[in-house]
């Protein structure tokens, strides 16, 4: 299991592995939005939580099709299917690897971008907590979408269409945590719900994703 994890991480960090792509995209969003919206600090502070969450979500979406596509093409997915490691475990490990190369760096980068967007000081803790709690769900849901579309040529657009509606609850609760945290309202409820989404996705979606992969390998 750890061998698979390290293999995926090594592939991602190699040149062209797409590690920098999501981060660069996230940075671009945070730089372009103030250029488009205007420099008023109050406006930026108001929309910053939403921008950061939407940016993180889209950056995550960019690299989803890589989770299984390359392994499907070179046949290593077939090998995984016949290996003693159950497909559910392989899917969970691959989602974890995806999170380690996108979700986690995005979470670490987000406070820096918060400065650019004039995010109020009391929001930073909530920003990091919400991304930490929510981005694993994004990777897991994304892995499920990638498993559904793995056999489809040029399935990138379809993958986005399938995954976006599934991202809605995570996005809403994630941005809500920061908004409420900034205004001093109760931010624990949405944070708990976010953790619940991540926990349930992590527990149940590997089964759905593994089923989809088995169908696609048939």
């Amino acid at each position, binding site marked *: 299991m750890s061998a698979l994890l390290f293999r995926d991480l090594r592939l991602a960090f190699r040149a062209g592995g797409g590690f920098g792509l999501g981060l660069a995209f996230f940075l671009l969003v945070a730089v372009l939005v103030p250029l488009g919206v205007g420099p008023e600090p109050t406006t930026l502070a108001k929309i910053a939580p939403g921008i950061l969450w939407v940016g993180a979500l889209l950056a995550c979406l960019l690299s989803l099709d890589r989770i299984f596509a390359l392994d499907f093409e070179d046949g290593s997915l077939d090998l995984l299917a016949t290996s003693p490691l159950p497909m559910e475990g392989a899917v969970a490990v691959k989602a974890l690897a995806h999170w380690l190369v996108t979700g986690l760096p995005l979470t670490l980068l987000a406070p820096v971008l918060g400065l650019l967007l004039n995010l109020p000081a009391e929001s930073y803790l909530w920003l990091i907590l919400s991304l930490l709690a929510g981005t694993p769900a994004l990777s897991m849901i994304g892995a499920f979408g990638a498993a559904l579309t793995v056999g489809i040529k040029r399935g990138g657009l379809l993958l986005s269409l399938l995954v976006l*509606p599934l991202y809605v609850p995570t996005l809403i609760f994630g941005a809500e945590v920061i908004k409420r945290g900034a205004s001093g309202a109760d931010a624990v409820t949405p944070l708990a719900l976010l953790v619940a989404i991540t926990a349930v996705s992590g527990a149940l979606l590997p089964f759905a994703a593994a089923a*989809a992969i088995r169908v696609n390998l048939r």
Partner: protein
Amino acid sequence: MSLWEYANPKKFMALSGRLLPWIVALTVLSLGIGIIWGFFFTPDDYKQGSTVKIIYIHVPAASAAINAWAVMLVASLIWIVRRHHVSALVAKAAAPVGLTFTLIALITGALWGQPMWGTWWAWDPRLTSFLIFALFYMGYIALWEAVENPDTAADLTGVLCIVGSVFALLSRYAVNFWNQGLHQGASLSLDAKENVSDVFWLPLVVCIIGFELLFLALVLIRTRSEIRLRRAQALAARERLA
């Protein structure tokens, strides 16, 4: 003799063929009566004026869209558990009908919201949920179209439908959490029955029945078409082998 007999395509074709003319006739009758009654013979609401007439299509379309999703979910579950091909085709047939009803609910909602709420689009929880719903339907239909092998497509869309339903419920809850919304206003709400007198209620019920029958008729016709196409494909495959 069990209900599952009708999962046999031949039996399904025979039974649905016999029922369809009646269902179509009932659909035309109830939809015709409901719409004409609602449009021509109901008074204006003292508050909403003539826009109250929009509910005769908005509410039935919305409820039929939700029922269409329920039908898809049940049919997907039956396909995954019992592997009856007809039920996979029912799920496939229901999706475009559900999407159309969802779009009707969204468009009529926007047209009604413009004079009532002063805006074409409000991020009201129900409108937002329906927008997400429409995206779900589009993704589901696109997945059916994208996968070539029919059994693979049925399996994948079945899994998507089940996972999607869980997330649809979750979205509904999240959206409520996020915005309390305009729909709940007492004078506008249909949930509070005392606000809706029989003058509006009766034609609305007829329209709801009409839309449900329309859904049933369209799904049966589409399922029958899919079964025919599937049989034609099977015959063509046998021919190639021979």
